[in-house]
């Protein structure tokens, strides 16, 4: 049963492990995955702890439905206090790791302490072993995984690993599995590096009993039809996420040249079709692959066609690699995008963050805020492909003054560089924004400003807001499982009613993160995809546990509030430009210069945006400072001290 999956507490300093069951009461309150991780983090991270200290717990989990007979539930979640933001750290990856961990008997791992020398964890069929990783240290993310398989003599072992970026404590290093699946935000790989933990390897052959197997099979068949008939998923399954970048670029919704333009010109070589062409030529017509049990198969396989890494196999590139190595630095070559994507996968570093931060440095260089002295003679200009890739190497190995400074993350780098460099840093809560431009889409701007892990699109983005859907459709989606009769608008330039959309999406994404479901299988890119009404059956048939849609919503709200409480405890205040729910001044002061006619000239209105945030807080039951009221905490059962249920 999914219900008999366990939680393991592992202390790397003492080498002690403790395995506990997860009580039913905990499942009813937090379900599992990210939601339960948030509860564990709140209780296990000492207030104000240094993110790189042994006491910062690294929490690893699969979702409640992971490896049950529910498709696309392969997500692995990582949580810790973030070394990048000093606030909530949280990263989520696909692949095959979480199901293997579940077959090995575990849903959650709480890893504390620091090993004296490099180690890796070996978790198999209820057993946990700490093993020497001296031979693995220094290896790339994929070489590490293959070496572990050889050492353990089992090619089916799945590992979550760090590359050199994590070893070198780059503050936005990833945890990786497979070729390119990345737990890639807020520096969870850096936390692993700080613990001398090179990898978590797992292999399991333990049954997960399905409560109602035949019903679960039939329900899953229907679920898959709902997924695969959505047009957006058909496109995802052909072109992958590059199609989103291409489509967004066409109307002027991507960032380029840091934040100077909202559309990339002459982008033909890095349009999704061009990437697809290379995948077809180097792999063949069937070059799409996916995560465990998923029918969307959104990532391409390719070989780098030319350049110093010609012939290397990799997967992707995703939207973020197009942004990081194409749009943002204004580099127009497929080879650069595919090479950059390969480098970040091998080093194990957040492509989004590294692309943003290098583009920021490029703008500073062109403005003369940094010079050849800081770059050690590197011409760090926009459009300089070689300089861009050289900076990736330098950051991941902390080479040179600038490489070392940028590896610390945007806020510390801005403090070291000084002058007015901070004004150009496109970040929220210390984490860089996605390579999208939200000046023409206030709903998306609100999402970015308020996301719990710092600037992020996968926390609460109402992406369907861009589709101009009829209001009746919006009402159907956003009107349940809790009734909403306030305003809703089909106009993406509008401010009214958007706070509710963002609030609803925040709960929706928390729910899928608790269940382990991928965001392409819920209301993210398509309005017809499964949400609260569809999950109770999947949960019941697979686990036997009964939830109503409203109960799932309540769990999501409860978990989102715990994340908020954690952030408030660690220093979030509403208007703090570094740790607040704020946006860079350029969102309000610099109008969009390119794109569709209605986007040109668009910028965010300060006053309307403030009202939007007020509304957003009100929907949560938070006061004007964004602090949950006593009444809200009582309603969610969080009024008493968050006692240890585990």
């Amino acid at each position, binding site marked *: 049963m999914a219900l008999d999956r366990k939680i393991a507490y592992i202390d790397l300093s003492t080498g002690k492990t403790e395995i506990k069951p997860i009580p039913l009461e905990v499942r009813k309150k937090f379900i599992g995955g990210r939601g339960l991780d948030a509860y564990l983090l709140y209780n296990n991270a000492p207030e104000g702890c240094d993110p790189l200290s042994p006491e910062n717990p690294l929490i690893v989990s699969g979702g409640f439905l992971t*490896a*049950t*007979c529910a*498709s696309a539930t392969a997500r692995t979640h990582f949580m810790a206090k973030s070394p990048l933001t000093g606030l909530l750290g949280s990263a989520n990856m696909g692949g*095959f790791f979480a199901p293997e961990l579940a*077959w090995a008997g575990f849903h959650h791992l709480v890893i504390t302490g620091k090993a004296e020398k490099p180690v890796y964890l070996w978790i198999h069929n209820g057993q946990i072993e700490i093993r020497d990783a001296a031979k693995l240290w220094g290896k790339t993310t*994929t070489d590490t995984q*293959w070496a572990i398989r050889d050492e353990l003599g089992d090619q089916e072992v799945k590992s979550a690993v760090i590359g050199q970026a994590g070893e070198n404590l780059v503050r936005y290093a990833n945890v990786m599995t*497979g*070729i390119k699946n990345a737990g890639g935000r807020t520096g969870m790989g850096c936390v692993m590096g700080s613990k001398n933990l090179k990898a978590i390897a797992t292999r399991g*052959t*333990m*049954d*997960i*009993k*399905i409560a109602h*197997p035949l019903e*679960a*099979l039939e329900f*899953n*068949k229907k679920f*898959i039809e709902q997924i*695969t008939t959505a047009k957006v998923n058909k496109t995802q399954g052909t072109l992958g996420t590059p199609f989103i970048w291409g489509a967004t670029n066409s109307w002027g919704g991507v960032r380029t040249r840091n934040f100077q333009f909202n559309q990339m010109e002459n982008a033909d070589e890095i349009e999704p079709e061009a990437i697809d062409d290379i995948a077809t030529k180097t*792999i*063949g*017509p*069937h*070059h*799409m*692959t*996916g*995560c*465990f*049990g*998923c*029918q969307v*198969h959104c990532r391409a*396989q390719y070989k780098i066609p030319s350049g110093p890494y010609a012939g290397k*196999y990799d*997967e992707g590139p995703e939207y973020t690699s197009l942004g990081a190595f194409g749009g943002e630095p204004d580099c127009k070559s497929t080879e650069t995008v595919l090479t950059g994507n390969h480098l970040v996968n091998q080093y194990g570093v957040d492509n989004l963050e590294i692309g943003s931060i290098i583009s920021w440095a490029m703008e500073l260089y062109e403005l003369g805020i940094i010079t050849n002295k800081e770059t050690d003679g590197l011409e760090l200009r926009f459009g300089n492909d070689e300089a861009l890739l050289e900076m990736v190497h330098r950051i991941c190995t902390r080479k040179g003054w600038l490489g070392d400074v940028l590896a610390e993350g945007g806020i510390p780098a801005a403090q070291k560089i000084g002058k007015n460099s901070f004004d150009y840093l496109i970040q929220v809560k210390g984490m860089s924004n996605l390579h999208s431009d939200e000046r023409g889409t206030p709903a998306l701007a609100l999402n970015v400003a308020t996301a719990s892990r710092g600037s992020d699109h996968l926390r609460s983005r109402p992406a369907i807001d861009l589709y101009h859907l009829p209001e009746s459709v919006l009402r159907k989606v956003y009107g349940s499982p809790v009734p909403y009769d306030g305003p809703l608008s089909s106009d993406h330039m509008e401010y009214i009613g958007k706070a509710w959309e963002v609030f609803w999406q925040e709960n929706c994404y928390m729910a899928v993160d608790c269940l382990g479901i991928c965001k392409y299988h819920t209301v993210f890119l398509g309005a017809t995809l499964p949400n609260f009404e569809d999950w109770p059956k999947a949960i019941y048939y697979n686990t036997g546990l009964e939830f109503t849609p409203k109960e799932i919503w309540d769990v999501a709200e409860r978990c989102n509030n715990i994340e908020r409480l954690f952030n408030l405890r660690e220093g979030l205040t509403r208007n703090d430009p570094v740790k607040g729910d704020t946006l860079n001044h350029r969102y309000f002061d610099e109008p969009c210069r390119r794109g569709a006619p209605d986007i040109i000239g668009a910028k965010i209105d300060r006053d309307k945006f403030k009202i939007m945030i007020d509304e957003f807080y009100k929907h949560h039951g938070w006061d004007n400072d964004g602090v949950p009221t006593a009444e809200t905490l009582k309603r969610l059962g969080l009024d008493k001290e968050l006692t240890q249920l585990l």
Partner: protein
Amino acid sequence: MEKFLTVNSDKCTGCRLCELVCSVMHEGVSNPAKSRIQVVKWEDEGRYIPMICQQCEDAPCQSVCPVGAISRDKEFGFLKVDYDVCIGCRLCVSICPFGAMNYNKTTRKVIKCDLCGGDPQCVRFCEANAIEFVTADVVSSLKKREGATRQSAASKQSLAIWEHV
């Protein structure tokens, strides 16, 4: 004409849903170790090949069985194990050239594909159509066309070269 499971590994995305639904269908559990089908992967090259019982005409598992526990199902033509006769020696596991005779560690019995009684769930759930349940003549005519297409393309190319010369 009897249908059999044919695999087009080029189309396989490597998602392993077939392993999941197989174990749920037959054992009521999620556990690829108890699936009749398993996807073998070379992740560093992105190659995936689902391995499954081919229901061989001259079946090594049947020939090697010392107690005659393996016979052919009259209705669907698959090879089945009679567990009342099987002594659990696992000779069939060792001899199968496809590794398609599996062993259930919990029940301590050999397990193999039974075509789900005529509606193989691996086929039903494979959206990529990497596994199909068809008769041999359909497969051979498909292969003929594929081969002929390659030949035709080659001859067109050589013709073009001649014209150029």
